[in-house]
């Protein structure tokens, strides 16, 4: 959305990034054409290079540790491996054709063309259609990091039982047939959701709802872990999980504030709302847990932080810091209940991807429809509280479309994967753990027995 915002504001308002231009405009009589303005701003570029790196950090070590700590010790490598593999495989997919499908010339608002295949035409100069002050390569790389983390999020749902081969096939299919089109719809020039006017600053629909609802399909189709319901499956390393959550929080500044695509006031706003929502949701989750269970837990605090970060993602550049408090606190509480849903559905969503990312993402999209304000971002819209009921409806429509497309699509792709290579590890493999059965490795050899 921010991308559209920038384009719409046009050359004149892209100026914050180009102080000199603005100043000169008063001195010189000659007008500057848009093309001439499309010069690289070193400050914006510095910030976007950093943001790009930060979003990669979210996948590994961020998510890898967050998820890795939550599984049992015989599966920690298997889970980490899936995040790490996303970094490898999806980078190639992205530069070869994924980026083009998402950001190439639109075909009817549905899918990008093949103009950027193999990064053709993606060079050191800016592409003003998306970001006028940074090299096109940086915009491409930044977007590529989103394409990596989104499928990695899904892996939490089928943790501890899917074969590595199935994960690989499914992830490649999902990225190509779900993620790339979704990114086009929402962020591509001409994408239909973008045209509709839905606001999604940093990926509420594209990243969180899409992965969250696909996670539901995956958990349903692959079935419960052996022993689920009978055996206890406590997290094997909660310090890892908290470190992972903290790194996610840190990296999310790149994810959200980087979505301003510049080091400006809007980035500052997104930075602060992100931080505030994470903090507020941590408080919210802790409070409700304390009330209901008698104690606040460390895992609850970490989960709350992630829930808040998810919830603020679509609105980070459209709402005020105070609105972020509300979005965060409610996000924490809603997701606390969100992860209970699986009990009713009887689905073994091992690491609560649905409860946090799908539920939190939906709340975030709706909250954007409630709290968004043009005073924060003139390129945005006014939400319910600022007199604009229309936005809320648009947001709901975008959410529903995302839910339907992604659930159905993921279901289909999982069926295809199952037919091709089989989704689930053998019973013996599952007992031994994915580390040994899929990768012939053990995570820890701490004792003196060479076991």
């Amino acid at each position, binding site marked *: 959305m921010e991308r559209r915002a920038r384009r719409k504001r046009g050359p004149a308002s892209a100026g914050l990034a180009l102080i000199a231009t603005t100043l000169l405009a008063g001195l010189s009589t000659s007008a500057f054409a848009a093309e001439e303005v499309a010069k690289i701003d070193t400050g914006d570029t510095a910030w976007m290079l950093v943001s790009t790196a930060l979003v990669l950090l979210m996948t590994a070590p961020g998510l890898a540790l967050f998820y890795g700590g939550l599984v049992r010790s015989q599966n920690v490598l298997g889970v980490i491996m899936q995040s790490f593999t996303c970094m490898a495989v999806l980078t190639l997919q992205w530069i070869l054709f994924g980026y083009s499908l998402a950001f190439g010339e639109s075909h009817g608002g549905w899918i990008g063309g093949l103009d950027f295949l193999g990064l053709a035409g993606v060079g050191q100069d800016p592409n003003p259609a998306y970001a006028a002050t940074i090299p096109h390569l940086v915009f491409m790389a930044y977007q590529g990091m989103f394409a990596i983390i989104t499928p990695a999020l899904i892996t939490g749902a089928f943790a501890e039982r899917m074969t590595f081969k199935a994960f690989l096939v499914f992830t490649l299919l999902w990225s190509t047939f779900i993620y790339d089109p979704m990114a086009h719809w929402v962020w591509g020039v001409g994408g239909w959701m973008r045209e509709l006017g839905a606001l999604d600053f940093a990926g509420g629909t594209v990243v969180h709802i899409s992965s969250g609802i696909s996670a539901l399909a995956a958990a349903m189709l692959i079935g419960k872990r052996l*022993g689920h319901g*009978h055996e206890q499956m406590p997290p094997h390393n909660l310090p890892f999980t908290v470190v992972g959550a903290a790194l996610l929080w840190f990296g999310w500044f790149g994810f959200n504030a980087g979505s301003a695509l510049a080091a400006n006031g809007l980035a500052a706003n997104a930075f602060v709302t992100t931080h505030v929502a994470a903090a507020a949701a941590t408080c919210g989750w802790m409070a409700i847990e304390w009330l209901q269970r008698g104690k606040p837990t460390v895992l609850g605090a970490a989960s709350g932080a992630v829930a808040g970060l998810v919830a603020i993602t679509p609105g980070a550049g459209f709402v005020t810091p105070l609105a972020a408090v509300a979005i965060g606190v409610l996000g924490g509480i809603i997701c606390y209940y969100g992860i209970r849903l699986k009990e009713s559905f009887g689905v073994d969503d091992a690491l609560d991807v649905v409860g946090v990312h799908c539920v939190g993402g939906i709340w975030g999209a709706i909250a954007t429809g409630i709290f968004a304000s043009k005073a924060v971002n003139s390129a945005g819209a006014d939400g319910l509280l600022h007199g604009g009921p229309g936005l809320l409806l648009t947001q709901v429509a975008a959410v529903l479309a995302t839910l339907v497309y992604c659930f159905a699509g993921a279901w289909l792709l999982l069926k295809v994967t199952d037919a091709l290579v089989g989704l689930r590890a053998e019973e013996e493999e599952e007992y031994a753990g994915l580390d*040994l059965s899929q990768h*012939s*490795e*053990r995570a820890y050899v701490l004792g003196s027995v*060479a*076991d």
Partner: protein
Amino acid sequence: MKKVEAIIKPFKLDEVKESLSSIGAQGLTVTEVKGFGRQKGHTELYRGAEYVVDFLPKVKLEIIVSDESVAKVVETIEKAARTGRIGDGKIFVLPVEEVVRIRTGERGSEAL
């Protein structure tokens, strides 16, 4: 009194413990051990180097019982721990001469 020692598969621990509880056993002690036996181990790969690992994770149960309960306890463990697959483990019975409950100083079968 006797000491019954059982080496079992780790994922059977809960089931065995439940069964023992249900026949009235009030205490037992568990140790993580590594077993070497007929069940074969696995191979690990680290940068191309192959490591053959013979030792498998097992759990050792120790339970002190009165002479008359031995048969029952052994049978209970046997049943609960059995999967029928190699590596199910063993049960050993050893003689015990004295038992003391530290808290009270009770001796003999009262101390169990």
